[in-house]
């Protein structure tokens, strides 16, 4: 297993956002975590990415205990984040944003090659490489965010609500890209509100409600369960 989380509990002061979460991601897998808003999915992903500390439980990446790793060293372990809402550096150019992705020495050495691959994946970014990132459309910004994470040459990529705020036509393209990322050998952990898309693409999935992982399994089985519907719609 590439990523192993066991009984994570994550709180902001005394406001517990995640009570108990255990999950696994294997090499080259696409794993989705679905659940309604407020279930704690973003909190979970941010903790895995190193942005948050967790209060109890364990997190291992390829055997190494991430609890001992400082926040700015998590990326070096092979984890890259595509954050919710893109969170690009809006005052920097597209190419500069991508370059931040390969800030770390190992990735920096392969900068030119990886950059070529990213531009190959997203031709429009090559055209707009010198433009200020804040001026791009939502879909293009999402491409930059994904490209930035790819530049870090990760083993595991974390996607936090990639379809958020995007027009439906672009959403399909986004998920195609997620597939292509996996084809490159990168494992994917995907957090999504959009149940259908998340299930279509995943090898395995987890369902999260009110801070807990309540079920897991193969998408086709999970889709049969009625309480997903209830969790999302309340009826």
């Amino acid at each position, binding site marked *: 297993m590439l990523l192993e989380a066991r009984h994570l509990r994550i709180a902001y*002061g*005394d*406001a*517990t*956002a995640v009570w108990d979460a255990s999950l696994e991601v294997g090499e080259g897998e696409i794993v989705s975590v679905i659940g*309604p*808003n*407020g*279930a704690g999915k973003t909190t979970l992903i941010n903790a895995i990415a190193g942005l948050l500390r967790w209060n109890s439980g364990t997190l291992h990446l390829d055997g190494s205990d991430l609890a001992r790793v400082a926040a700015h060293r998590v990326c070096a372990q092979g984890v890259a984040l595509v954050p919710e809402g893109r969170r690009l550096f809006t005052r920097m150019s597209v190419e500069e944003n991508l370059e931040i992705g390969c800030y770390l020495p190992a990735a920096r050495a392969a900068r030119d090659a990886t950059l070529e691959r990213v531009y190959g994946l997203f031709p429009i970014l090559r055209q707009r490489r010198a433009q200020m990132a804040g001026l791009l459309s939502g879909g293009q910004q999402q491409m930059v965010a994904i490209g930035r994470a790819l530049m870090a040459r990760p083993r595991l990529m974390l996607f936090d*609500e990639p379809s*958020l*705020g995007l027009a439906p036509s672009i959403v399909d393209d986004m998920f195609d890209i997620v597939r292509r990322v996996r084809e490159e050998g990168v494992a994917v952990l995907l957090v999504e*509100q*959009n*149940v*259908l*898309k998340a299930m279509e693409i995943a090898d395995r999935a987890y369902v999260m409600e*009110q801070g807990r992982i309540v079920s897991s399994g193969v998408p086709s089985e999970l*889709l049969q369960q009625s309480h*997903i*519907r*209830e*969790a*999302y*719609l*309340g*009826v």
Partner: protein
Amino acid sequence: MTGRRKLSGIGAAGGVGLLALLPLAGLPAFYDSFLYIIFYWISLATSWAILSGFAGYFSFGHAAFFGAGMYTTATLSVKFGVPFLVTLPIAAAVAAALAVGIGAVVFRLKQLRGELFALLTLAVSFVVATIILNTGIDGGAGVLTSSVAVPHLMPSPSGTIYLLGLLMCAGTLAITYVIAHSRLGLGLFAIHDDEDVAEVKGIPTFRYKLTAFALSAAIAGAVGGVHAIYVGFLTVSETFGIAVPLYVVLMSVLGGARHWLGPAVGAAIIAASLYAFTSGDQAMIGRGFVAFLLVVAILILPEGIVPSLQRWWARLRTRAATPPAVSEAPGVVAVTGNEKASGKVASLHPQTRAILEIRDVHKSFGGLQALRGVTLDVREGEILGLVGPNGSGKTTLINVITGHFPLTSGSLLLDGTAIGDLPAHGIAGRGIARTYQIPRPFAHLTVLDNVALAAAFGAAELSRAASLVEARRWLDFTGLRAKETMLPADLNLHERKFLELARALSASPRLLLLDEVLSGLNPAEIDRAIGLIREIRAQGTTIVFVEHLMRAVVELSDRIAVLNEGALFALGEPAAVMRDPRVVSIYLGKAYAA
């Protein structure tokens, strides 16, 4: 309590009286001078704290007002022969006018951060100094005031100056004490902790800041007027040097800038110890030492001496009292009324009128369109659930209704009156209150004061005493009464959420907006919160609540409004709306809806 206050008041007046008689005792003039300097610094430091300590807008330009007052008195009495005492109120007025001029411009800047205000005020004092230096007011030669006739209130002129200094000091402390215990003071303290929330809770922040600034300047101006005669000879460099701004900041920070007596304590300590350094070179070392104290004080004792002492004293007392009770789970107090906590209200009359009309409201942030023409009626007495996927604009809508953001276009009508153009504190005054998803209590105010403040500035505009009664009523309702003297930081999340609720309710709102009040709570706490919400509606308050916990929304709401991508997507009865295939598809995807 009032008995004790009266006693301290009489004691204070007596003390002032005794001090006033000192010059008659025939002691050497040194004592008049020494005490005068202490009174002078107490007045300056305390006046600085009225805006900067209470509201947190640190000003580095106190010298501007002090100097304006000094030169007003000097010019009027020397050049125009105006009687000395008459110049004092004029000096105060001039300084106040200067402050109002600055504040009217500067407080309107929305992006005014603390540092900018501090540096602007510092720059202002240099500009004032330059103007005075270059015009006939001083002209570089200085102004000699030693020949100005001082009224014969005391046997000697120095005795009279001493008396004036004493009166200024007593007056300043009295004024500051009154402010600290008034609505203005409460508002300023709230502004210090969270200006945005203060505005939304009904505090007219611009007006209050300007008032505090003007009062602070007026006192400094009057003090300057008296000091003009004390020094005998004015120079621009001495008057507008860095000493006054530095010392008032240090004295207040050291003694405790938020407490009315703090700056006085700090001033007394510093002024007395500075007297040890009298000659030229030593004065410089003295200043360096003072600055060193400032740095140490800021780093180690950021609250100041007086509040730290208070806290230490309070801790001693509670330890001596009964052992701490086990914290009980807050209970829900049953409200006597027709409505019981279980079950929904019978279906509303079809003619129920709209209390809030939202008409084609648009809101953009730069290029991002958060709301694209939302049109919705909120019916009086209903519980309306506001739901939608992430980014659909729910919180933005709440922020727009409460006046946190101005509308880009469209209109909002409360009881038929347009509120879209009103400042946030005006909207609060009309009876709209809200809670924040992440509780934002005023960190330095007690639980009781947090709630009482909302009552004082809410729709009912209660007096201080009445607001305390009202506050206690809502603390009982939410089960927080036992914790009324605690600070918000000492409460757990569930209690802080209920504090938010109590604070919103004590403003006597007709419309209550709840922003994700259930998030982060465990199931038992959620049940209690739901019960509370039903109680609130039973008392006649209309409720709009944003929530992600869908089961609770469906159970609690009379109607549900679904927002998607900044527009109203669906509206109607809960079960019907949430089963509507289009709604299902935006949550789960199209195939799921089939």
